[in-house]
Each structure stands twice: as structure tokens, then as C-alpha cells.
């Protein structure tokens, strides 16, 4: 019976990973408020578990193996197809597991910021965003992707707007996020329309086969431009990153955790999917754009994000700016376009999810304990003075994630950087490697300011008793911190999976 159930679950995993949170989102919205958290926990746990199982199966199969799931039994290219190859499996795993961890910590984080009577609806939106992002990765249909794009965007906007309980500026941030997200989605859909007009199909693999046949036609390139621009908005790739800082900054802390660790990752995956799978068959164009457009944008993002973070006094916004820079690293890896470059990009997708997820959970824990005492702007950097001693459990794990962010050896961040730099150098761009290292050296400045404030503040600011620390925050946080250490020392797993992901993409392209 059990084996039957597990076989069934595995066979339908591509659908179930999304359907479970999607259905429970509706259930959560209709249930009493106190049920919301439990339902979200259950849904994300099931998704994470299924993603793990799926990854385990995929890891035993050849790199180019591709699980195809036909929704409603309609065969592609007519029906909507969910496809899981090594690439998608990796990103789904990251999103599902990080989503689960974010969900665990969300209860405590929401406590101060969102009215308790709304929890059912909040978690409804939470699960919708989660399912939407998973769908974004899993779908193999270009139009279906737009739908998931919008599901996740609208749910995220709702969640960002929940920050209005603390600061009403969250509403404006949410409204702008809605506009820019909708415009991005429409851009994408225009592009998909052009491709459809040229080929008569919307299935990604099918598009990948048919587009090269019409590669001489101008509309193909117009479609490409629209699609890439639209997804770049969602992925917050420079110069379309401007929505990110205010949205992350004003959203409730729990929402920032979710968005920072998974939202941009899914969009980045879609971006590289467009390059390698949909347009991968056309030789000239994607390579050209990758190198001449993506690399400069990635470099701008890296440097600008880091510099803005250095001048930012609000820790939450500072970390958001640093995300812009970190997205730059990932895009740079993709932009190099070699196998090693893609691999480096995927390694950083995994590692950055762990790093930023951990940092925002940690920051949430710290700010939560100070809330009430420090309104307004509890995330101003000077409010954290001496917290290293007053909240040692949370703060030390926060520090580990922070060290990983700047790429100290023995942390996951170092592995990312090592692979990125060697990929960039072996592709012949040693000047760019220098810029990568410059940006990461600069990131020491803003991170170290935090360390100075939290641990080495002048003694008169160090006074104060130990503050209570919640296990619902420090347990997931420590799980991420230990993962950062583990994957910094024994990085084999991440490196292998990322290699498979990159190889699968190259093979498809």
C-alpha cells in the first residue's frame, strides 16, 4: 500500500508538487485564521519532499533524461506539458526546500507585522506565490508560463502589501511592484505571441526545434527581445532591478525571506531557459546577446548593487541591494555561456538561496526582538547595536550566512566565487574576473559594518539583558547556516547537481 502510494506520488510528482500548494491555498483562504500556518507548512513540506524524491530519481538517470508530464492527458505540443529535466529538478528542489524553510520561520516573523485575523488569507497568498514559482520552473509551455508568472506576481504583490500594518509605504511599493510586474508579464506574452505566430506552437521544446527553421525572419528576434525583457523584470536583472529594493524593504520580513530566497531564482531559471532551450537552436543571436548584453548588465548589477548597499543605512534594504549584486553574479555565470559558466550560475543559485534566506530570517529574528522598542524603522543599522551579545544564537548563525555572502573560505559562498571566477577566467575574460573579485571585496565593507555594530559596538551600547530567541526562527536559521558550512566544505553535491543542470541545458540547446 505504502509502496503503491509512493510510486503514485513519484509518477505524478511534477503535477503534485504544484497542485498540492495550489489546492491548499484555496483551502487555507477559506479556513479559520489559525489553520493557515499549519496548512502552509503541510503543503510546502509535501512539495519539498516530492522535490527531494524527484531529485533523487533524476540523479540516478542520464543527464539528458527528461520527465514529461501531460496535464489532462493531452499530448504535447497541443496539450500543456510539465517537464522536469536535471535543470528544472535542481531549481525546483531549491525553491521547494527554501519555501518550506521560509514557511517554518514565517509564523514568528508575521507575529508582529500582520494582523492575526488575516492569517488564513495571508497564507493563501503565500501558497499561491509558492505554487506559482514552482509552476514557472516546471512548465514546458510558453503561455502557461505567463499564467504562473502572473499567479506568483499577484500573490507576491498581495504579500508585499501586507507590510502596510507596519508602514503604509508598503502599499505604494506593492502598487508599483504590481505595475512593473504586469508590464513585464505582458512583454513576455507579446514575445511569446510573436514566436507563436512564426511557428504555431507554444511548447518550449517544439519552439526550440521550429524557431531555427524561421531564424531569418525578423519577428523571431522581436519576440526574443520582448520575452527576455519581460523575464528580466521579474528576475530583477539590472537595469530592471529598481522595484526590488522597495518591495523587499517594505514587505513583512517573512515575505522578504520567501521572495529573496526563491522568487528571483525562478525567474533567472526562466531567463536561461529562454536563451538555451527556446532560442538555443539559433546559433548567432543568443550567444551574441549573452555575451554582449548580459555580461555588461551583470557587471553593472554587481558593482551598482554593492555600492548602493554600502551607502544604505537600513539593513533590510541593504541586503536587498546586495541581492541585486548577487543576481549579477548568477547572470554573469549564465552570460559567459560556457558549460563551466552555467554551472557556476547554478551553484550560485543554490548557494545564494541559502545565504540570503538565512540572512533575512536572521535579520527578522533580530528585528522581531527589538520591535516595539524601536519604532519606527526597526531595521536601521544602529538599532542592531550590541545584539550579537544579546541574541547569540540567532546572531551567530546570521554571521555565518553573512560570511558566506562575502565568500569566506569554508562557506558555500566561497565555492560559488571560486567556480565563477575560474569559469570567467577560463573563458578568457580575466578583466571581468577582476571586477567580480572587486565587487566581492567591496561587499566586505557593508557586511563588516554589521559585524562591528552587532558585536563590537562601544561598550555603553552593549548594555541590556539577553533577549528571548524563538526556536521557530533559530532552528531554520541554523539549518541554513550549517548548510552554508557543509556545502562550503563538502561541495560535491551542489557542484555535481549544478554540472548536471548545466549539461542538460547545453544538451538541449
Amino acid at each position, binding site marked *: 500500500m505504502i509502496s503503491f502510494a509512493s510510486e503514485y506520488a513519484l509518477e505524478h510528482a511534477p503535477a503534485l508538487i504544484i497542485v498540492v500548494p495550489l489546492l491548499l491555498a484555496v483551502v487555507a483562504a477559506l479556513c479559520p485564521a489559525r489553520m493557515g500556518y499549519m496548512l502552509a507548512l503541510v503543503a510546502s513540506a509535501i512539495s519539498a519532499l516530492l522535490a527531494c524524491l524527484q531529485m533523487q530519481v533524476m540523479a540516478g538517470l542520464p543527464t539528458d533524461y527528461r520527465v514529461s508530464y501531460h496535464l489532462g492527458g493531452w499530448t504535447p505540443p497541443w496539450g500543456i506539458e510539465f517537464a522536469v529535466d536535471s535543470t528544472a529538478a535542481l531549481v525546483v528542489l531549491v525553491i521547494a526546500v527554501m519555501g518550506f524553510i521560509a514557511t517554518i520561520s514565517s509564523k514568528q516573523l508575521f507575529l508582529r507585522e500582520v494582523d492575526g485575523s488575516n492569517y488564513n488569507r495571508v497564507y493563501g497568498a503565500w501558497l499561491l506565490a509558492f505554487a506559482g514559482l514552482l509552476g514557472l520552473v516546471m512548465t514546458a509551455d510558453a503561455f502557461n508560463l505567463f*499564467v504562473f508568472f502572473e499567479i506568483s506576481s499577484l500573490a507576491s504583490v498581495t504579500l508585499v502589501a501586507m507590510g502596510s500594518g507596519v508602514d*503604509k509605504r508598503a502599499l505604494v511599493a506593492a*502598487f508599483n511592484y504590481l505595475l512593473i510586474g504586469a508590464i513585464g508579464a505582458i512583454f513576455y506574452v507579446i514575445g511569446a505571441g510573436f514566436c507563436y505566430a512564426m511557428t504555431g506552437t507554444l511548447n518550449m521544446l517544439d519552439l526550440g526545434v521550429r524557431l531555427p527553421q524561421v531564424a531569418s525572419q525578423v519577428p523571431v528576434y522581436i519576440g526574443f527581445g520582448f520575452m527576455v525583457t519581460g523575464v528580466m523584470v521579474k528576475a530583477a536583472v539590472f537595469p530592471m532591478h529598481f522595484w526590488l529594493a522597495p518591495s523587499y524593504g517594505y514587505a513583512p520580513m517573512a515575505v522578504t525571506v520567501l521572495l529573496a530566497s526563491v522568487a528571483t531564482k525562478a525567474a533567472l531559471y526562466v531567463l536561461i531557459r529562454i536563451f538555451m532551450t527556446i532560442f538555443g537552436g539559433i546559433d548567432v543571436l543568443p550567444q551574441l546577446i549573452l555575451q554582449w548584453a548580459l555580461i555588461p548588465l551583470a557587471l553593472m548589477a554587481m558593482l551598482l548593487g554593492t555600492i548602493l548597499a554600502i551607502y544604505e543605512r537600513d539593513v533590510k534594504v541593504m541586503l536587498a541591494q546586495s541581492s541585486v549584486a548577487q543576481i549579477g553574479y548568477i547572470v554573469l555565470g549564465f552570460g559567459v555561456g560556457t558549460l563551466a559558466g552555467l554551472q557556476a550560475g547554478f551553484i550560485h543559485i543554490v548557494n545564494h538561496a541559502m545565504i540570503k534566506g538565512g540572512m533575512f530570517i536572521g535579520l527578522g529574528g533580530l528585528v522581531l526582538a527589538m520591535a516595539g522598542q524601536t519604532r519606527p*524603522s526597526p531595521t536601521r543599522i544602529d538599532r542592531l547595536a550590541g545584539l550579537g551579545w544579546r541574541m547569540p544564537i540567532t546572531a551567530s548563525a546570521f554571521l555565518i550566512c553573512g560570511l558566506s555572502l562575502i565568500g569566506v573560505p569554508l562557506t558555500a559562498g566561497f565555492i560559488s566565487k571560486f567556480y565563477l571566477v575560474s569559469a570567467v577566467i577560463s573563458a578568457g575574460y580575466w578583466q571581468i574576473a577582476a571586477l567580480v573579485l572587486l565587487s566581492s571585496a567591496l561587499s566586505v565593507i557593508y557586511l563588516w559594518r554589521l559585524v562591528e555594530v552587532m558585536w563590537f559596538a562601544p561598550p555603553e551600547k552593549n548594555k541590556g539583558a539577553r533577549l528571548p530567541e524563538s526556536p521557530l526562527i533559530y532552528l531554520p536559521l541554523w539549518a541554513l547556516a550549517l548548510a552554508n558550512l557543509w556545502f562550503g566544505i563538502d561541495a560535491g553535491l551542489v557542484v555535481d547537481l549544478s554540472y548536471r543542470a548545466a549539461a542538460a541545458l547545453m544538451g538541449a540547446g
Partner: protein
Amino acid sequence: MLDVLITHWNYFIVVFLMMIGLFIVISSMNLVKKLVGLNLFQTSVFLFYISLGKISGGTAPIIVAKADAPILYSNPLPHVLILTAIVVGVATTALGLALVLRIKASFDSIEEDAILSEKRNIRRRSLL
């Protein structure tokens, strides 16, 4: 040039509407007008898709029993897609309007410049 205009007139209308919509989203100070612009922008894309599906001489894609000769149908798929997109569009508009309501309640205005100056005030107060 003129024959392109005539044979592709539907695309020109789409582009025209799209630009108007985008222009309103960017230039208008009023949040509701921004939403109107967004809707226009979206609708132009709907038109784009639907006009793609039209095959000249084709009829509505409904299978009529006992048809003798093969019938030329228009492509139904874009209609299905746009049905979905319309639902998405409605949801976006609804959420946008809900946010505008809340903004109106909190900021006492839906004009962007008023909201900006209020934001600036909040910032100044928090720095004190």
C-alpha cells in the same frame, strides 16, 4: 508601404493601442489612470493574439455535423489562450484597484506627487 499598412492593419492598431496604454502607465500621476493604461496595454495584446488566429475565409471553429466539404476553420487556440489572459487581467485590475483603495485610505490621495511628498515626510520623521 501603403500595402503593408493595408494588409497588416490589425498590427498597427495593436501597436497604437499598446503605446497609448504604456504612455498612460508611465506619464499619468493618478493611480487609477495608471490602471486604465495598464488595461489598455493588456487589451492590445489580447487583440494581437486574437487577430493572429483569424484565417482569412475561415469560419468559427465549431464542428457542424455532416459537413460535406472540408471547412476552413479559424485557429481556436489563441481564443483559449486569451480567455485565460483575460482572467489574469481581471485579477490584476482587481488587485490594483484594491491597493488604490487602501492607498486612498492611508495617504488620503491617489495622486502620485501627493503620495511622494507624504513618503518624504515619513522618511524625514523616521530620521529624527
